[in-house]
C-alpha cells in the first residue's frame, strides 16, 4: 500500500493544521468564558497532534505517533489542573469569565 500522502499531500495537512491551530488561538483570544478558552487550547493541541501523525506518515516513522501519546497525557493533565483552578475561582468569584480576573494589574 502506497503512502496516503501521495494522494493528499503533506502541504494540505500542514494547512489544515495551521488553520486549526489558528482557530484555537482565535478562540483563546475571542472568548471570555474560561471553559471555552480551555477548549480552544485543546483545539490547538489537537491540531498539533494531527500534524504529528501526518508527519509520522510522511517520514514513515512511529516516533511522531508516540509523541502524540505524550501530548495527550499533557493535555489531560493540563485540563485536570486547569479545571481544578477554574472550580476554585468559580467558588470564590461565582463567575468564570476571565474578564473578571483583573485584580492584578499595573
Amino acid at each position, binding site marked *: 500500500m502506497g503512502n496516503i500522502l501521495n494522494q493528499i499531500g503533506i502541504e494540505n495537512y*500542514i494547512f489544515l493544521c495551521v488553520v486549526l491551530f489558528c482557530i484555537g488561538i482565535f478562540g483563546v483570544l475571542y472568548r471570555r468564558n474560561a471553559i471555552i478558552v480551555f477548549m480552544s487550547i485543546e483545539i490547538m493541541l489537537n491540531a498539533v497532534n494531527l500534524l504529528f501523525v*501526518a508527519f509520522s506518515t510522511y517520514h514513515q516513522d512511529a516516533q511522531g505517533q508516540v509523541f502524540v501519546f505524550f501530548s495527550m497525557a499533557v493535555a489531560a493533565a493540563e485540563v485536570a*489542573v486547569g479545571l481544578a483552578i477554574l472550580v476554585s475561582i468559580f467558588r470564590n468569584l461565582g463567575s468564570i469569565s476571565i474578564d473578571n*480576573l483583573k*485584580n*492584578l494589574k499595573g
Partner: protein
Amino acid sequence: MNTLIAITGLGIFCLLFEILNFRKGIIPFTILGLLGVLALNFCEFGSTESYYNNMIMVSRFSTTFSSLFIVLTIFLVALSHNFYENHPTKISDFVAIKIFLLAGGVAMVSFGNLAMFFLGIEILSIALYVLAASERLNLKSNEAGMKYFLMGSFASGIILFGICLIYGAMGSFDVVEISTYSLSAELPVWFPIGMVLVTIGMLFKIAAVPFHFWAPDVYEGSPALTTALMSTLAKVVAIATLFKLISSLNFIPSLENQDHLSTFENIIIFISIASMTVGNIMALRQANVKRMLAFSGISHAGFMLMTFLTVATSAGVLLYYTAAYALAGIAAFSVILYVCKNQHNEDITNFHGLGKTNPLLAAILTASLLSMAGIPIFSGFFAKLFLFNQTIQAGHIAVVIVAVINSIISVGYYFKLILAMYSKEPNQERTGKPFLIYAVAMISIALNIILGLFPSLVLDLLN
C-alpha cells in the same frame, strides 16, 4: 540520569512520609536528600554520557546547571517550613511538587530527546500552575494561577507546534540526529519555523518582552514562596533550557547556512533590549515588592538573553549570571517572606524601618538588591561584567550600552526599597527570628559574595 532518578524517588518518598504520618521529618529529610542528590550530581560531573537511547544526555552543562537547580531547591524547601506553618496537612504535597518540579527542571537541561524536553517543561509548568493557585481561598492566588495556566498552556501549545514542525523537518526527536541534519544545506523551512516557535514559547517562560505580561500579575498574586520559586528556579531553568536548545540543536549554524543569522540576532537583540528597558522602567513605579521583582526579573531575562548572541562561548557566563541572579533572588525573597509573613500584601510600606528592627535581614536584602543592581563585590556585578565582556567581544557594543543605561535605571527602584528600609520609621512589630529563614538568607547571600570574590569557581566550570 542518576540525579533525575534520585530526585524523582525523593519526591515519592515525600508523599510516602505523609502517609506514614511523619510530617515533621519531611523538610529535614528532603534537605538531606537533596544534599545527597547534589553529591550524586557532583559525581556525574565531568562525564559526558547518554542514557536510555539518548533520552538523557549528561554533560558538564547539564550537571552544573542541575547542581544550581538543586541548590536553589534546597533553599526553597528550607523556606517552606516557615511558609507552610499553617498548612500542615499540605506540606508534603507542596514539598513533593517542588521536588518534581526540580525533576522537570533537571530533565529540561539534560534532555537528549525533544520528548523529554517537552515533558520536563510540562511538569515544570503544571507544578507552577498548581503552586501559583495553591492558596485556594485567596482570589489573587486563584487569579494568578488562572492567568498563568491559560497563558502557559497557550505557550505550551506553541512549543508543541514548534516541536512538531521540527519533527516534520527532521523526522526525529533525537537531539544528536537533529543537530546533524540541521547542518545540511537542504532543510525544509519547517525546521527554523519550529525552532523559532519553540524559542518563542521558551521566551514566554522566561518572561521576555513582549511575552512578559503574565509575570508581574502572576508574581504578585502567587503565594510569596511560589513567587520566589518562579523568579529564581523556574526562570533559571527556562533560560538554561533555551540556551541548551539553541546550542545543542545547532540552530545558529543552520541559520547561518540559510542567511537568517543576522535577522535572528537582531530579534534577540531587540527582545533583549526591550526586556531590559520595559522591565526596568515598569519596575520604577511599583509599590508591591513582588511585582517590582517581577519586572526586575524581566529585565534580567533581557540581560541573560544577551548570552544568546555568543552561544558558542557564553555557557559559563550564563551559568554565572543565573547563579548570581538566583542566589540574590533567594536572599531577597527570604527576607520578603519574613517581612510579609502575616501581611495581606507585599507593599514597600511593610519594609519600613526594617533596618532598625532587623538590621541583619535589612543588610541581606540590601546586599541582594545591590547584587541585582550590579554593584561590585557582589556577584551580580561580575555577572554583568562577564556578560558585557562577552557581548563586546562579539561586537555588539550598542546592546551593552543600552544594558548599561538600564543598569542605571534599575538602581532607581532597587534603592527605593533600600530607602524604605533605612530611612523610614518601623510601622509594625516584627517578632521571631525563624532560624531557617535567617539561615537561607545568610547562606545564599554568602554564596553570592563568594561567587563575587572568586568568580572563577563557577565561571571556569563551563569554559
